[in-house]
């Protein structure tokens, strides 16, 4: 590419900008954004930078974007998302960044720096996250009719949930297997605590933890995808959420049958 043919209206290099836009789209998808939101963001950014047209196809774990410049030249960017890890704060930050850039386009360097800053954004420290797990599962155990002792066991089991989650991140295996192993480990901890005379009802203690693990967001995002005509992503997301939920319940039940 030579001369000005690779430049957009602000003098930005079109392929570098295209790569940044694709990266932002990939991040949104990776952190659990809906397909329609990803496509819309990519489209709006592309138009804001001065591409003549932007065509984007996104499914649950892949994004393909074709950019066409004013001079008629096109190029394509493709990103594969291997793992979806829900992080609403990062989706919000990506959304805010795209709004800002649509108002005032940034150069590729700045764009990339902002993306890196989003990747590094962690609203809570590790110990805070662990406390959050404990608080939510204890409250939900009480919500399902458990007593104070059941809630306390649920809170301790939530610590096991936190650490098993960390462990599974390292193992990098299939989602359903991960969900099953995590649930089984938490179930085993509950059984152990109950064997020590703590807690009374395995069911309500488990339910408190199950609520945290079930992908309610996966279920709802997939429905929204289906409404937006993204049937393939919707069906994939729905099946993934249902199978994940079944694996979680199975993990808790099999731990109880084995240890109680």
């Amino acid at each position: 590419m030579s001369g000005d043919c690779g430049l957009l209206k602000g003098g930005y290099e079109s392929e570098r900008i295209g790569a940044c836009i694709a990266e932002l789209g990939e991040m949104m998808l990776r952190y659990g954004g809906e397909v329609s939101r990803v496509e819309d963001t990519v489209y709006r950014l592309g138009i804001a930078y001065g591409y003549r047209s932007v065509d984007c196809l996104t499914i649950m774990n892949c994004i393909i974007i074709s950019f066409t410049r004013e001079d008629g030249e096109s190029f394509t960017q493709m990103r594969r998302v291997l793992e979806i890890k829900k992080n609403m704060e990062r989706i919000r930050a990506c959304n805010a960044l795209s709004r800002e850039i649509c108002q005032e386009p940034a150069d590729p360097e700045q764009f990339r720096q902002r993306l890196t800053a989003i990747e590094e954004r962690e609203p809570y420290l590790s110990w805070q996250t662990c406390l959050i797990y404990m608080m939510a599962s204890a409250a939900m155990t009480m919500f399902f009719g458990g007593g104070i002792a059941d809630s306390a066991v649920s809170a301790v089991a939530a610590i096991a949930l936190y650490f098993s989650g960390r462990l599974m991140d390292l193992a990098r295996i299939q989602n359903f297997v991960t969900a099953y192993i995590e649930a089984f480990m938490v179930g085993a901890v509950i059984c152990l605590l109950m064997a020590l005379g703590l807690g009374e009802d395995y069911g309500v203690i488990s339910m408190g933890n199950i609520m945290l693990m079930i992908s309610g967001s996966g279920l709802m995002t997939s429905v929204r995808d289906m409404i937006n005509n993204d049937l393939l992503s919707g069906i994939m997301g729905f099946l993934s959420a249902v199978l994940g939920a079944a694996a979680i319940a199975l993990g808790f039940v099999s731990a109880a049958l084995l240890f109680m």
Partner: protein
Amino acid sequence: MEETVLHILCSFIGTLGFSMYYNVGVRISALNAFCAMLGYASYVAVLELSGSIFWSNFAIAIFMTVLSELAARRFKVPTTMLLVPMLFPEIPGGDLYNMVWNLFIGETGLSLRYAIELMDIIAAMNLGIVLVTTVVKIYMNISDRLRYGHYEGYR
């Protein structure tokens, strides 16, 4: 009555934790928790009046989706960030556990009953969400066309 108040309080704390579990900031998490508590209280009231799990979940899904759409525009955040935590207390985690548990201990009839209830809740919630989301989408399309002469978004 006391038990209901305790459950409503637990729905607040549980949702606050769940929202933060998904890395939502404290301010928005507090809003989610408050709306979820309001939603659960309404759910209890509608269930008392109608006696139907389907209609109470349907009504709450509509209520929460409207709230989340309004709050998303007010705070400029994605709707999912609000809707998922707001509906957290209504997610049928208990039914799911009971369904699998009863299946394993050979209580097939009971397991089937929980499975049907589970499907009922999921269908009711999704119908409520679809209804409100579709109305919002139609409104956005018409308002964009009136303002700019064409739809501003991708599709």
